[in-house]
């Protein structure tokens, strides 16, 4: 019978703060500001910022990851509740980010020879640095967002975990892109994309295990 259960649940009733989307937005924006400030303080703005501003790299590179971050947070808020579902409109930031990246890949393919791209990709000095900063920053951010995810009840816990990883990685990449002066689109796709994807996969494994309810 449920009566004793109802008595128990009623006795256990306490004020619980509702899950509010704006709190996640505020928290994530504060994280972005703090991480960007930390990057600028400890690593500094890229040395060639004037020419990067002129070429547009100072905008499109962080812009791609900022769009991915916005898109992933929108999708997270979509599916954090039991009746939640992905809104197609919220995929738009990802589509814009992909369009910008493809546009850069196409534009650079015209004037950067294949050999140069190969040597940039095999550059052992900066690639591990980029990978580790984005990966490390992302892992720290995923931990910081535990407050939100422990309260969710998603119909898609694996996807929610994946998006948590992607959003954390995209946020770290946005901030780190202010420092990094590697503007070749292939390099950005590989050495920024891989850690973000890795964080997404890690998030999906954790989500499947810990976000079930």
């Amino acid at each position, binding site marked *: 019978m449920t009566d004793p*259960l*109802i008595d128990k*649940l*009623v006795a256990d*009733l306490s004020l*619980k703060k509702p899950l509010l989307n704006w709190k996640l937005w505020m928290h994530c924006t504060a994280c972005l500001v703090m991480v960007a400030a930390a990057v600028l303080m400890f690593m500094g703005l890229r040395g060639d910022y004037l020419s990067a501003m002129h070429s547009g790299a100072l905008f499109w590179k962080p812009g791609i990851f900022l769009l991915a971050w916005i898109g992933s947070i929108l999708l997270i808020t979509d599916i954090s*509740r039991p*009746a939640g579902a992905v809104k197609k409109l919220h995929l738009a930031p990802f589509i814009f980010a992909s369009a910008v990246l493809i546009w850069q890949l196409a534009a650079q393919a015209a004037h950067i020879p294949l050999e140069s791209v190969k040597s940039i990709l095999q550059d052992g000095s900066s690639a591990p640095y980029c990978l580790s900063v984005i990966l490390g920053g992302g892992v720290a951010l995923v931990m910081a967002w535990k407050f939100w995810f422990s*309260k969710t009840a998603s119909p898609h816990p694996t996807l929610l975990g994946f998006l948590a990883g992607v959003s954390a990685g995209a946020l770290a990449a946005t901030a780190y892109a202010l420092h990094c002066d590697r503007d070749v689109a292939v390099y950005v796709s590989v050495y920024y994309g891989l850690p973000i994807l890795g964080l997404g996969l890690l998030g999906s494994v954790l989500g499947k295990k810990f976000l079930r*309810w």
Partner: protein
Amino acid sequence: MRAALKGDQNAYRLLLTDLRPWLAAYFGKRIHRNAIEDLVQDTLMTLHAKRQTFDPSYPFGPWIAAVARHRWIDHMRKTLRYVELELDQEFPSQEHDRDECAKHDVKTLLKLIPPAQAEMIEMIKLQEMSVEEVSQKTGHSPSNVKIMVHRGMKKMMAAVEEAQDD
């Protein structure tokens, strides 16, 4: 629910008491009657634990329906895993009630898969025929029978997952 979220115990008691028959009717259409009470209690506990996910600016009906649906899908997943484990390890179960519930639930899902696979699962799981008996009756080899049953079970699992995505 809005009052309950603010800590109103009387409103919360009224809500849970009113929900009980609704949930019993909801699960009554989907699962064996012996499992209904467990699932109703499970859903009420989930409601309690996850009440912060209810957004007061939206209606309560779709929210509780989604919670109940989630609990039902979880139950069906466990049932299918239980049935498949029994097949793979070939040990007889001592839990009569659980067997009965699982058979009932599997029967409702059989309508979702191809008739040939459904027939095999029906014979092995519900009529408790051996793989050899089914093999002789249908003309398929024993390993083929096992494969078809396994694929059918996987399809039923996929149907449950699909129900979750809808």
